[in-house]
């Protein structure tokens, strides 16, 4: 504990979905070893609707500290107090993490039928805003991950869209901000 290379906590979130494949993967010895080798000291997993329970650990034997919970009304605090976020591919979790300026690894659930979520994750990975993996490639992606290569996400604003809408509805162009 308290070593100079302690990078802090890794937060894993599946949102409101059921994604046991991801929980199982981060709970694996291999995955925990890779995270520890990067300097992370603890792992907090949000389980969602899944039924697989990871093994809790207090980390006293020098290994990664592991804890979990099912749901929380607001994940923002968990995200902002973590050093790395590993998330399912839901757009809510993705943008909440990017806006909090936290490094993000998105894991696409390849068992989903209409998997349009892959589109978003891959598009954002192409632009280097995040890293993209599947449950089976997660350990590999984490092992070779270089967070320095990631680019900060430029927050987008709805104002151009709002101005277009205002003009369409007949409001004058000038927008007075409240």
């Amino acid at each position, binding site marked *: 504990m308290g070593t100079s290379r302690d990078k802090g906590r890794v937060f894993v979130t599946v949102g409101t979905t059921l994604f046991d494949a991801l929980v199982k993967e981060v709970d694996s010895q291999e995955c925990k070893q890779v995270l520890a080798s990067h300097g992370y000291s603890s792992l907090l997993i949000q389980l969602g609707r899944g039924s697989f329970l990871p093994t809790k650990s207090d980390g006293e034997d020098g290994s990664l500290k592991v804890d979990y919970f099912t749901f929380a009304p607001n994940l923002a605090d968990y995200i902002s107090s973590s050093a790395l976020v590993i998330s399912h591919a839901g*757009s809510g979790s993705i943008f909440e993490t990017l806006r909090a300026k936290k490094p993000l690894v998105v894991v696409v659930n390849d068992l989903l039928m209409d998997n349009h979520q892959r589109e978003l994750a891959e598009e954002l990975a192409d632009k280097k805003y995040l890293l993209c993996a599947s449950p089976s490639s997660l350990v590999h992606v984490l092992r070779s991950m270089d967070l320095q290569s990631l680019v900060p996400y430029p*927050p987008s604003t709805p104002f151009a*869209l709002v101005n277009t809408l205002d003009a369409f509805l007949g409001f004058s162009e000038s927008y007075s901000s409240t």
Partner: protein
Amino acid sequence: MSLLLVLAARVFLVLRNTGKPISPVSPQRPLHTLFVLGSGGHTAEMLSLVGALNLQRYAPRYYIAAVTDSMSLTRAATLEDHLQKCALSASSSSQKPKFYQVYRSREVGQSYFTSVVTTLLAMTHALWLVVHIRPDVILCNGPGTCLPICMAGFLLKVVGVKWVVIVYVESIARVKKLSLTGLLLYKLGVSDQFFVQWSQLKARFPNTIYMGRLM
């Protein structure tokens, strides 16, 4: 028979006027606006849009979410509280927002047979709510929950009760293909304004508008 002809003529007339700006002069009063919250990431995007609106123009505000999704209305209420506090000067003129829940056409994993019954129920409920609210503008961004609401808004136009402007913003999660809900609204030509959040989609669907992203 003649009733059907009149109806068909009305549908044709409404479709022809869909997508045309309301009027060249500024509306004399704020627009009653109905926001359909689609849960999860959809709700986050819609609330990001609400936060950017000039609230004196869009009032009063009505929010609808699925019966199974209690989180969305809580999040909208939290945002509204925050916005009311920020707009101190306008506090007297602004009316309180209203929140409604609507039945869903189809839950994940529901069979297609029972879906027919629940869809009819959801459509009736959506129609009742839209007739009750009689919004000037409907703003939605998927998923399927917003489809019956949009159709109800369209119906109000067809029977001549009110001209309801229907605005659809395709979810940011759709990069290359429209969602089923988006595709249906696009093909039917029901929406007055159809926004997409990726330029790739604008290239494939020319009648959409790309004005950057909400998130």
